[in-house]
């Protein structure tokens, strides 16, 4: 199963198996990686699952849609490599992707 490397704000690393087709948010939330709240469960309704994608992985990701773009605009500490992790589906091509988590989602 492809893996995702989640790195907490304090540097703590979590390597989690995420089934293909699931969102990158789900991998973190179900295994209780701190730093992703995802209050809405992945409906792109709350902007509390922001991650910073390691720049080398950015080209591998599908582009943001309008909804994600506008939601992100309201996330704290937004950066050019910010994404909403609920909007990115796991694929074998993303095996090993590195995501850094913000200090707070609120």
């Amino acid at each position, binding site marked *: 199963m492809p893996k995702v490397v989640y790195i907490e704000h304090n540097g703590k690393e979590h390597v989690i198996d995420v089934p293909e087709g699931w969102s990158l948010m789900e991998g973190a939330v*179900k295994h209780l990686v701190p730093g992703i709240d995802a209050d809405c469960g992945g*409906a792109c309704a709350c902007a509390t699952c922001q991650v910073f994608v390691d720049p080398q992985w950015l080209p591998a990701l599908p582009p943001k849609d309008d909804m994600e773009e506008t939601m992100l605009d309201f996330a704290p500490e937004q950066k050019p490599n910010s994404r909403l992790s609920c909007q990115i589906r796991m694929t074998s091509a993303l095996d090993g992707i590195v995501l850094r988590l913000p200090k707070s989602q609120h």
Partner: protein
Amino acid sequence: MSERIVIIGAGQAGAQAVQSLRAEGFTGPITMIGDEAYPPYQRPPLSKAYLLGAFERARLFLKADAYYQETGCDLLLNTSAAAIHRAERTVELTDGRKLPYDKLLLATGARVRRLTCPGADLPGVHYLKTIADVDGLQQVFQPGKRLAVVGGGYIGLEVAAVAAKRGLDVTVFEAMDRLMARAVSPQLSAFYAAEHQKAGVKLKLKTGVEGFEGGGKVERVRAGGEVYPADIVLVGIGVIANDDLARAAGLPCGDGIIVDRNAMTADPAIFAAGDCTRHTGREGVELRLECVQNAIDQAKHAALAMVGKPKIYSEVPWFWSDQYDLKLQIAGLARPTDTLVLRGDPANRKFAVFHLRDGKLAAVESVNAAPEYLMGKKMIAEGIAVAAERLADLSVPMKQMGEEQRA
């Protein structure tokens, strides 16, 4: 010895409480009991992607299976509580076992309101609250089937949208004169009525259902004095708070377990969170909220209070509903006396209705309009005054709306 915490109810609030208790440093034993066969799962997708078959069951679960064991939470499934013995601080289970507690959290949720009209117990009459309910509904959810939806609220309309997409012939019966009357403004009701009709859904407003008929299974719906053929009926007419255990234990209840703003009941050893509660909201009005936000936030506050770090619960309520490609997001609680301001054009399927009260933003309803929702929620929380003309002015970006007003 460390305190023992028992949680009755294994839903969104119960799971959040476990997570928050551990995050707040509680290391004692936690036992969570749930009457369903499944560990805590998300209910919102049930009437949307899961019903459509676009969301596998494993994804519904809030935590990985191993989580409960890893975090030291004893999860008892298929288990129901029979009574709370407050004097001896035990929860008695229906199998006679007794679980001692030092602190108890009631996260018992709500159950569907059932119809009692003639024929209401015929096979083919469905409700939607659990995984098992949807699995039953999915088996008969086939293109061409005639689906009668009773109740034009969130559940009924989300199911109608999925059904229309799947090619079922859908009729929605609503007793009130507009859709989602309890939840949204008349403008939104009218917009959604038009969208459903565009998708081929037939709407029967001001049409109360009188009964169902059929030989061995439902075949017809009697409503508004007429008879409509139907293969499947889905009833979504609201829920009833599961406050029976609390009531029987002598805790004050009134359409929900009454809790203070620390999620504490009248008994300082017993807390309650989620759909089962009634609390005094941030506007000073007593209310019962049925939503994920309240389950999460109230459970967080219950956990804080249980570990001796109470914090007043004053989050702005928020809700969402997915119907077709329309994302409805609501923050705050509207009142009929609010001044309504439209931003954007419903014809573009992207707009928001703001509710102003005493010059301040009190609620926002947005359709496919995330900035309006997110900034609106923030402005409600911070009590920011804003002029109606400015809110309606699309040349002022939402992001500036709040910031400039605050400056």
